[in-house]
């Protein structure tokens, strides 16, 4: 039996196909989000099935998660990304105590119990200044690809100080810094530090290790180092961090198939 997890995030859709008994990942992929979320999710699902030579009928349970989960009507259950991230990361890094997930439009901090269940969580409010959107704005302003930001930050000798709490005003600051001759590398490092500081503020005190960093932004080189500096703790990047939400959804789909308790609504 095969299960699918669909993570309809704000910037990308991710799908993971899982063998229900062994929890072996059979296929996984991601594509850009759009207006027709369910159609896009099904397109990605079909592509993965075809690529893996798997018949659609073998997919016995689907759990949707993420911002657009309510739009994935093909799903058997919808579970929040908070719960799914916990399951996905716990599966990949069983000892994880704290999860920091930074996605395209929001950031989250999860504290896990010993069994991997969510003990507590927090999410950013209102502003995208602590999210991947900030990096996208930065990359666009500097005219570089997102993937280059890590290298650039690594070359910084004096990270710029980004003081604004708001992404809109922060962009104005970036323009001002560029106009004043600040090196782009220093601006990139400053923005990464700014995002990390905002997430660290959300974490507050009493953060338990190991800390696992996941979500799409965890793939941006240099962000893990920025987080470590802000938290004063080592940070482990989850394997395939963009997919942990979809993986958790697929695991919860497998549990449903087995008749085990899940928090699905």
């Amino acid at each position: 039996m095969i299960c699918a997890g669909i993570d309809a995030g704000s910037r990308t859709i991710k799908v993971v196909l899982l063998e229900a008994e062994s929890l072996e990942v059979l296929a996984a992929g991601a594509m850009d989000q759009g207006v027709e979320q369910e159609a896009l999710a099904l397109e990605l699902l079909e592509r993965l099935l075809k690529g893996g030579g798997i018949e659609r009928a073998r997919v016995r349970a689907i759990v949707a998660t993420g911002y657009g989960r309510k739009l994935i009507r093909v799903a058997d259950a919808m579970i929040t990304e908070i719960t799914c991230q916990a399951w996905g990361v716990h599966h990949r890094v069983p000892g994880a105590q704290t999860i920091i997930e930074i996605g395209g439009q929001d950031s989250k901090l999860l504290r896990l119990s010993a069994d991997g269940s969510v003990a507590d969580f927090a999410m950013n409010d209102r502003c995208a200044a602590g999210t991947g959107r900030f990096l996208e704005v930065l990359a666009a302003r500097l005219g570089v690809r997102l993937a280059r930001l890590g290298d650039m930050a690594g070359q910084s000798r004096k990270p710029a100080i980004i003081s604004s709490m708001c992404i809109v005003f922060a962009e104005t600051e970036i323009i001002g810094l560029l106009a004043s001759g600040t090196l782009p590398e220093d601006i990139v490092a400053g923005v990464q530090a700014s995002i990390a500081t905002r997430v660290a503020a959300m974490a507050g005190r009493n953060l338990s290790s190991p800390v696992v960093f996941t979500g799409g932004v965890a793939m941006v080189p240099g962000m893990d180092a920025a987080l470590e500096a802000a938290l004063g703790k080592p940070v482990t990047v989850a394997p395939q961090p963009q997919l942990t939400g979809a993986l958790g959804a697929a695991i919860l789909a497998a549990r449903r198939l087995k008749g085990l308790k899940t928090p699905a609504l």
Partner: protein
Amino acid sequence: MSNPLPRITLDQWDRRYAELRDAGLREPFYGGPLRRHVEEGDRRLLKLRMDGSAAALRLWNFLLTEEDRLHRARAEGKKIVGAMKDLGTVPVMAFSLPDVVAFYPDGAWWTPCMMESGDGLLRIADGLGIDESFCPVRAMLGAFVNRAHFPIPGLLTCSVGATCDDLSAIAQRLEDLAGPILWWEMPHRRRAEPGEDAVLLPGGFTAPAGQVALVRSELGRVREALEAYAAEPLSDERLAAGIRRANRVRRLLAELRRLAFTADRCPVPALEMLIAEMLAIHFCSDRQESAEVLQELLGEVKRRVEAGAGVLPADAVRVFWVNPVADLRVMNLLEDVGGRVCGTEYMFCHALDPIPEDLPPMEALARIALADPMVGSPADRAERICADARRFGAQAVVISRIPGASHCALEGAVIKEIVAERIGLCVVEVEVPPITDAIEPTLRTRLEALVESVSQ
């Protein structure tokens, strides 16, 4: 076990009202179908799901006719006192005088929500330089300017000091618009230091005797102002009688809360409980009728509890809710995602405690005023939240922030940390603006995740 009694929409209430009438429903003078309030501008009702009982109908009609009641009081020559900020003390004093009615003009903060901003109150406040960086209470300024919501009170009082900065700033702006305000000082409550006498306050907080004396003295000035305005002496006997009547309302609410929060099946929705609890502070401008409304609601809840009936599934997650919401719809949302409210701290838990009847009245009022959770440290407040959450068997806590309300800036974080440490419950903070439609998905995710965290 029977299926949950449905919470019904306004459309369903139209039919329900006809059924109740056919069954012989007897209503007070302010009764009638809820639909008329929408026609008068309270459009948010169209987005709410409400309890379907006659008792709830009476509660909603009582709430939504307060303006009519105030205008009628003015027409009848009654004196109208506008009490601001103190949350529950000045109205007890005002209602102790004959032909005096008190209300909270700051209660207008819910008007933009109920009227879905069709009232224009916030725009007027913007024009006065009190923009959205301030607490939604700024809607009060608009209500004073357009005079479309309540008659201008003959006496305005406002507590200041260890109270909300925003409200003080807004009330100061009001003084230019509505005439003089009697400002009375509320000190920041602290614990007695060595050498100071400590006084135990209702609810369990303590304060130095000197602080109680200061508040007593300040309330003495309020008393004099009330006497001068009403041209009647506000004797200790009158105050004592007023306290007893206020306590009747508080006792009804205490029993209602006990039943609503501890019953196996949730017997009354969070929305109606929120409105009912608010009666403790403002009586909706009619103290006697408040008691009657609560009595009927309590009767309905008792019947449901005895019958094992509830408005939500039996496995709903028990959530303790901190702070009132600017958008009432969020109380529905919690229930829609599988939660039920089991315990509340809407910033005025002191107004739910009985006022001591075995003390001189002014001493009793000073103590209850100083027991206000908002005039002490957030840690004190968190302690009480922990105690009440334990008492009601809560499984999780929601701290609802109000955008622009300065007293919430760090308080939520402090409460969250203490509650998580002391009682180990999952705590989530949410920010609730007056209209949440645009952020409903993110709010829903937070509340769903909270429910999932408990259910996992």
